């Protein structure tokens, strides 16, 4: 097993899936010789050629709209949107078509497409390059919304997303691309989409998070452990369709929960999680569920970004709030 960054792990997933299935094609802006602005598609054009690693004109609706056509034809297009902040240019193609084609044709035509996009803050980027709006897609019936939290699950989930018979929105936290390395096996590894993961067991409080926010959540858990507070940590991995069973089970045990995401709080993914916990574990809840999130503002330019992003200290504070009540 090699130690890989998330960029390398994603590249491995693409490379191997393309090797074993010639219906897998990549398309997007600068995915060819440039290898994508984050190098996720690095060198793939050298191996698979420009018919399969398709540099597109600068047109997001086209990337996704053509992807839909390709998928209907039987290909498995992996569309790259350069930054998730530019995926609204193709919102209608996803909502009007990708999400509905199977449904609309009673199963006859399907869209086994992936839309990959880097999301999230913390990398000192320009405007529109740091947003986290997974809730838009999560609220769109017919889509699946997946967010890995590290190299190994990123690789295994991307493989699953490519093989998934339905459209998957795959958000990659920019802040994780090169943040750390993990052992990633050379041999095939696939994770099931739709299944949250128990990362760490604990009895006192449940942390629920995903993407780049899992790490501060785990750090917070570690710091709290030093005080004898045992945190159960759940990595959502699939935001939608949300399988709440593990979450409810955990909160039935701990009675307390802290949800962490960097998206704006209101109408964000955390709200749905709170609702599910209330619906499924009301009589077990010993304190209000805490939401540690971005604020209901546009993420500020990078000089103030730190104040916007949830961090270990904020998570610990929320955990204390839920524990002291």
């Amino acid at each position, binding site marked *: 097993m090699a130690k890989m960054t998330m960029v390398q792990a994603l590249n491995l997933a693409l490379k191997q899936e393309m090797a074993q299935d010639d219906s897998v094609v990549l398309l997007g802006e600068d995915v060819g010789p440039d290898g994508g602005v984050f190098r996720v598609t690095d060198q793939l054009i050298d191996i698979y050629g420009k018919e399969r690693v398709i540099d597109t004109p600068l*047109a997001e609706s086209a990337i996704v709209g053509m*992807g839909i*056509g390709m998928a209907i034809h039987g290909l498995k297009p992996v569309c790259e949107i350069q930054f998730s902040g530019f995926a609204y240019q193709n919102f209608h*193609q996803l909502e009007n078509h990708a999400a509905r084609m199977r449904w609309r044709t*009673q199963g006859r035509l399907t869209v086994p497409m992936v839309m990959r996009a880097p999301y999230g803050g913390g990398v000192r980027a320009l405007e529109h390059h740091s947003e986290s709006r997974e809730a838009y897609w999560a609220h769109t019936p017919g889509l699946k919304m997946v967010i890995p939290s590290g190299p190994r699950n990123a690789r295994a989930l991307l493989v699953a997303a490519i093989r998934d018979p339905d459209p998957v929105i795959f958000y990659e936290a920019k802040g994780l691309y090169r943040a750390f390395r993990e052992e990633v096996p050379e041999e095939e590894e696939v994770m099931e989409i739709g299944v949250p993961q128990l990362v760490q067991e604990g009895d006192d409080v449940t942390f629920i998070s995903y993407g780049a926010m899992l790490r501060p959540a785990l750090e917070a858990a570690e710091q709290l452990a030093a005080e004898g507070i045992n945190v159960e940590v759940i990595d959502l991995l699939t935001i939608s369709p949300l*399988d709440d069973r593990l979450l409810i089970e955990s909160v039935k045990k701990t009675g307390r929960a802290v949800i962490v995401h960097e998206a704006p709080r209101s109408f964000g993914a955390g709200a749905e999680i709170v609702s599910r916990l209330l619906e499924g574990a009301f009589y077990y809840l010993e304190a209000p569920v805490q939401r540690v999130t971005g604020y209901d503002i546009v993420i500020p330019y990078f000089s103030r970004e730190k104040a916007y992003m949830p961090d270990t200290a904020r998570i610990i504070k929320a955990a204390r709030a839920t524990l002291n009540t």
Partner: protein
Amino acid sequence: MPRSRIDIPETIHYLSILDEHGVLDTELEPQIDDKTLIALYSAMLLGRRFDERMLDLQRQGRIGTFPPIKGQEAAQIGSIFQLKSTDWFVPAFRETAAEIWRGRSLESILLYYNGFNEGTIIPADQRDLPMAVPVGSQILHATGLGYAARYRGTDEIVMTYFGDGATSEGDFHEGLNCAAVYQAPVIFICQNNQWAISIPLKQQTHSATIAQKALAYGMPGIQVDGNDVLAVYTAAQEAAERARNGDGPTLIECVTYRVMMHTTADDPSRYRDDEEVERWRQKDPLTRFAVYLQNKGLLDQSREQEIETEVLAKIQTAVDSAEKQMKTLGEPLDMFNHLYAKMPPSLQCQKEEVRQYLANNTGEVHHG
């Protein structure tokens, strides 16, 4: 060359073969065998009569809102005829005649306009996409299909339809631009019926023709008399040949007219004059084609009547069958089906919630 005119390699042509008075340009007349000519005529007539019948049904409250196609039969049938069943048909929402030609059953159309999801079933042996309601959005699917067809090394081509209004959408632009970049085998058929609901062409765009928009993409473009089935047939044939030979996409503007309302919910008297409609009625695609067939000795009164009778019978059978089917369709729980290949647990829960609710519901309401 400090100040000079740039010569654009592509030129835009206009094509008309059989004019509104039934006068034929014999030099341009395409060679079509008799059987095919009658098939073209029958398909146009079926489109016409089915449309009229749907309007009746709608007025009687027996189907919901629908968009009539009257006047656009030549534009649809002349072009769709060029597709093989291995080719791809990517319609908008006003291609009823073309859809029927491809094999979509009249029943399915009736079910669709009665609000049944079962009405979107696609003929088993055809590569047709379902109707696309969001204007212009389907154009990109055609480009993607064309790319995939070429990637797979097939000689499949793709034909997509849209209106004059659709040419204002960003997706039209992105779709044609990408098709040209990839030289994808796609034929873009614009049914320029002069109106987008209440917006006339001159408020839709300042360009003199829609065909010339092809120049923006370095793509061949042609404007044809869209009520002349021979001209449409010819232009589509040329474009199909080009596409099949790997010579890339074509934009065809069929100049035609929406003789009826936009949909049955629309009242055109609010925004256009009857005179204009009357002028276009004179250019009816069926009338002139019938004259052509008569002149060729392929159609006399009795043959005409025969075809008419066949067409009406077919429609009646479909209406009866659809109305029968509707009585058995409509199971509410089906609404959860087909969204995902495998129903996720959360959706199973919701489906179960509805099942239980429906089982107990009647009692509940009456207690209230």
